[in-house]
């Protein structure tokens, strides 16, 4: 599905900060992978690069067989629109839009007509168990519900790759488990590739593979599926 070779990333905020120091990583189609590491280890940066939200300085990144290098904003937006769904720690829903409108938004940028968009959005809201909350604003929903709306939004465009940055970071343990169960089920039924960044071991342990990052490098990979 995707392959990274010798990825380097340096931030320049007055002082140079070498965040990624040569990452080599391959993720197969349909895999459910977690990335773990201490804060500042570079795990979020890695996820952003995979998600084409950020660029990298050195190395190569191929997504679905295509080299992702020096993409223009427009090309990156098109790739994101077609391949990638995002789930964030802080949900990142648009506050003045209802749950339904939030879920339907990716389809708007794909030019899907409103009627079709809303039908599909309702279907996905139903999948995450929030059909009755469709007309509610995000502020009227609990944290777990918001994250489920965000998951529905990430899935609606049927991306091949779902990236989740600390999806349970803002949730209590019960809701966290529900969210992970939901992601797991989607991975199994839809076959979408999933990469989760987390620092919670009990979350990571439920994925197929844990990639440990320390100080900008992959220190070791735990293969749980075949262990």
């Amino acid at each position, binding site marked *: 599905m995707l392959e990274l070779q010798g990825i380097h990333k340096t931030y320049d905020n007055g002082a140079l900060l070498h965040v990624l120091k040569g990452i080599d990583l391959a993720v197969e189609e349909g895999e459910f992978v977690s990335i773990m590491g201490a804060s500042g280890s570079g795990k979020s940066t890695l996820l*952003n690069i995979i998600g084409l939200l950020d660029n990298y300085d050195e190395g190569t990144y191929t997504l679905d067989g295509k080299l992702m290098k020096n993409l223009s904003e427009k090309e990156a*937006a098109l790739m994101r629109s077609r391949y990638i769904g995002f789930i964030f720690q802080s949900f*990142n829903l648009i506050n003045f839009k209802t749950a339904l409108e939030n879920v339907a*938004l990716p389809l708007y940028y794909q030019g899907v007509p409103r009627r079709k968009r809303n039908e599909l959005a309702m279907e996905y809201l139903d999948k995450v168990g929030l059909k009755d909350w469709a007309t509610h604003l995000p502020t009227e929903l609990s944290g777990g519900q918001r994250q489920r709306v965000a998951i529905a939004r990430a899935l609606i*465009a049927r991306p091949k790759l779902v990236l989740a940055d600390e999806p349970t970071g803002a949730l209590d343990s019960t809701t966290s488990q529900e969210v992970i169960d939901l992601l797991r089920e989607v991975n199994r039924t839809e076959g979408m590739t999933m990469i989760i960044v987390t620092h919670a071991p009990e979350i990571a342990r439920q994925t197929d593979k844990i990639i440990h990052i320390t100080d900008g490098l992959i220190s070791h990979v735990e293969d749980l599926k075949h262990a």
Partner: protein
Amino acid sequence: MLNFLQELFASMRANKLRTILTGFSVSWGVFMLMVLLGAAGGLNSSVMDNFAQNATNSMAIYGGNTSEPFDGLPVNRRIELQESDVDMLLNHFPQISAYSRAKNMWGIEATVGSEYANISVAGVDADYVLIRPKKILKGRALNALDDRLARKSIILSEASVDQLFHNDEPIGQTVLIKGISFTVVGVYENEGGGLYGMMPYVTMQQTISNGNTTIDAFNFIVDGVTTRQDSEAFQKQIREVLARSKRFSPTDQSAVWVWDRLGNYLQTRMIFSAISLFIWLIGIGTLTAGVVGVGNIMIVTVRERTKEFGIRKAIGAPPSAILRMVLSESLATTFLFGLLGMLIGSGVLKLVQMIAGGMAAPTQQDEMPNIGMTILTNMHVDLRIVLSACAVLIISGLIAGYLPAKRAMKMKPIEALTAK
């Protein structure tokens, strides 16, 4: 397109108060522009209407007194115009296409039966109507046949008719002036009212005048004079020709009086163009303040919505979609509120016009028309102004939105997402 509009209005609704407050400054700007331009238009057409009553390329020459000694002749010499001067000028200036001599007799007694009135009678040539058109209320104007046959025809002002005939039909009736019978052929409207009458110049010379060949005024229309320079040059030539024959200094402005309607007209028109320009400047200034306000708010909006744009980008919005979104929000705000200002502006202009029109109507006869009222009744919104205001609005909306939109578009999604 419909999708796009729905998306646009959703985000405008989300910031209702801010949109309204910003929009208000634009409405106000357009409103001011409309009212100012409407008032200027009113003033303009009031004054220009006044001009329209007379042929604009007409001139008149009157006798005067010298103010400079010339050729050994003293100052303060009376210069009178003579019939022979008219003939000479006509020979000299073929571009004079129509003319009328005029001789005035002030306050002479006219009687009809037992009624009498002291009316002022002017003797004029038939072409006078071309130079100073009078509105004929009844009957006809004086014509060339009256001149040729030296008919004893007279036309009377409304007030004269009222006094001499009361409610009787005046046309075809006889008026006695200095013991001579004149036939009333028409009734005309004299601005400002008053007891007046007009008869052919030749008739006056043969009947009631003392027969001398001095005239009070020489009115004429000149062809081919369209600019101020033309008219000033022509005036100068006329003065030179008259100065030579009547022996006064060609630079002596008071020896003969030249009254130049075209010059006046052009000068007035120039003043109005200047006023118009000034008003546009004020209006555009006010509008600019509104537009700067919109631009300002759009910058704030973009900063505040940075995160939202980040989210949109993350879920697949191309940069062009973000640019279009901000730009059209700015455009929609300026345009909708501009339109509102325009509507209110035209409404106010219409209302003022209606009210003032109702008040101004009864005053027309007895007094000079109230110029203030005339300005108000003439206030109008012409389509040209509305269209230019629309163009100004669209351009302003684009200008106001451009920088903020560009900023929103350029933001990297990752930076936008992590923005607070």
